[in-house]
């Protein structure tokens, strides 16, 4: 069985039959749990033909949802990119007490339920919230408006860039930056000409994952959005509305765009991993 040739030295006694059974089980699991749900999105979207598919996407509310999702993702990625750079610089270039606590706090949004992420902003900025009434009296709407959606998305996507950059910059050490400094480079020069070229792939990787989550966030955004069609509806929220109206073709048509985004993300991620595994890039 050349097909099942082991990649590395096998366990002696792991027979070809065992290998075949394990591989078959693994591929069946992949098919059942991953491929089938993915294929269903496209099958359902196209179940009434391409005409119905494009009709679902051409709807003004769908278009408004796509625009809002792109806007929210762009803002979230930009601010969390800036945060990731600053946090990684502070954590990896200097020693200070409480550093590991800080790194733990950066990861905190990953262990909080998305619904709780939305909840905290309602408690803060909602009509019955801590500072919500004051803000509303001054004409600033956060909850059931775009700022709330941006805030909730920023919260859930906060760790992505930082957690890619911190281990990479930790590994690279401080030597290059220290040499650049002794040669008279300014802080910004060091960052743009020494650090950034070294970590560009890790940064891009973080941005990619951050963007995928920002475009797809549902729970946190659902709590703060208010679900105003054409105004505070992101793509995932619009999918929910269409699905609950039994407009399945349109729901899956919008979903198929997000599924394509996910596939594009995976492809780019694999390409990035290939680049970083090969030192001769």
């Amino acid at each position, binding site marked *: 069985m050349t097909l099942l*040739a*082991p*990649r*590395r*030295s096998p*366990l002696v*006694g792991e*027979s070809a039959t*065992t*290998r075949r059974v394990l*591989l078959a089980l*693994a591929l069946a699991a*992949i098919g059942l*749990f*991953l*491929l*089938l*749900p993915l294929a*269903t*999105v496209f099958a*359902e979207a196209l179940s009434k033909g391409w005409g119905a598919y494009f009709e679902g996407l051409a709807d003004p509310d769908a278009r408004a949802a796509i625009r809002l999702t792109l806007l929210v993702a762009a803002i979230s990625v930009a601010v969390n990119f800036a945060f990731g750079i*600053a*946090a990684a*610089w*502070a954590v990896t*270039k*200097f020693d*200070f007490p409480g550093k590991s606590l800080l790194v733990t706090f*950066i990861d905190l949004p990953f*262990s909080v*339920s*998305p*619904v709780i992420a*939305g*909840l*905290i*902003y*309602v408690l803060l900025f909602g009509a019955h*919230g801590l500072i919500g009434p004051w803000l509303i009296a001054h004409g600033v709407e956060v909850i059931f408006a775009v700022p709330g959606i941006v*805030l909730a998305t920023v*919260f859930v996507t*906060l760790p992505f860039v930082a957690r890619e950059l911190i281990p990479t910059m930790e590994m690279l050490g401080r030597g290059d*930056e*220290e040499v650049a400094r002794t040669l008279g480079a*300014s802080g910004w020069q060091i*960052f743009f000409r020494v650090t950034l070229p070294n970590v560009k792939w890790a940064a891009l990787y973080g941005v990619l994952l951050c963007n*995928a989550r920002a475009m*797809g966030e549902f*729970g946190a955004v*659902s709590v703060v959005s208010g679900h105003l069609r054409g105004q505070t509806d992101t793509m*995932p929220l619009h999918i929910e509305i269409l699905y609950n109206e039994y407009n*399945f073709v349109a729901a899956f048509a919008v*979903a198929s765009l*997000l*599924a394509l985004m*996910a*596939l594009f993300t*995976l*492809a780019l991620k*694999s390409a990035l991993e290939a680049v970083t595994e090969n030192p001769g890039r």
Partner: protein
Amino acid sequence: MFARAASPRVIPGFGPTLGFTLAYLSLVVLLPLAMIPLKALGLSGAEVLAIVTDARTLHAIGLSFGAALAAAAVNAVLGTLLAWVLVRYDFPARRLVDALIDLPFALPTAVAGISLAALYAPNGWIGERLAPLGLKVAYTPLGIVVALIFVGLPFVVRTVEPVLEALDAEVEEAAATLGASWFAGFRRVVLPLIGPAVLTGFAMALARGIGEYGSVIFIAGNLPMVSEIAPLLIAIRLEEYNDAAAAMIALLMLAAAFALLLTINLLQAWARRRIGG
């Protein structure tokens, strides 16, 4: 206060980057999160008691934890199998399968949710095959487990893969030459070495599953006392303008999740000591 006598800092930017990091983290994460205990503290003792002994609340929290535990257990086995096959065997499309493992991280939860609901509904592609067997998945707690298996699938694979990559083949070969069968070799030599990684992945999948919302609500049916998860109950209480009850349930969830993860960490520390690794 942060000053250090030895080695003056050569690299510039300590103040601005740490200042920005702390300010941003406080404003976006820490202060908003503090709203949960703050709001819950505003409740009287009797109100707290009413919420924490409410049958619907307790059922929702129990369901979220139970379903997440079941799904994480399935993922521990499935993830170990997938990592084993991906690291050790060469087969066509291996790289493609490897890339596909991360699909649940990249695919928005609402998309996964409606897709799984369509698949497992009584008239869906899988649902109609299970119906004659008397098995109902969609709109039952089992559907919740299926959704959580999907979202948690990559965790164990990704934590176990690097350990298997690094596993010394000599260790296994020694076990084999000593006469151990393949299974005995796996159970007594490989499993203890990858155990901590499996447990880490299990804990991550569990934490994710407890709070998961988007992929679950479409397939769950959301029947109170049957298939209503805790995050959904929080959202419902908020829609009823019962902010304090929402905060209290959130606090319960956070406390329970924290206790669970602490237990797993302790278990892991104990396992490491035992292996002497």
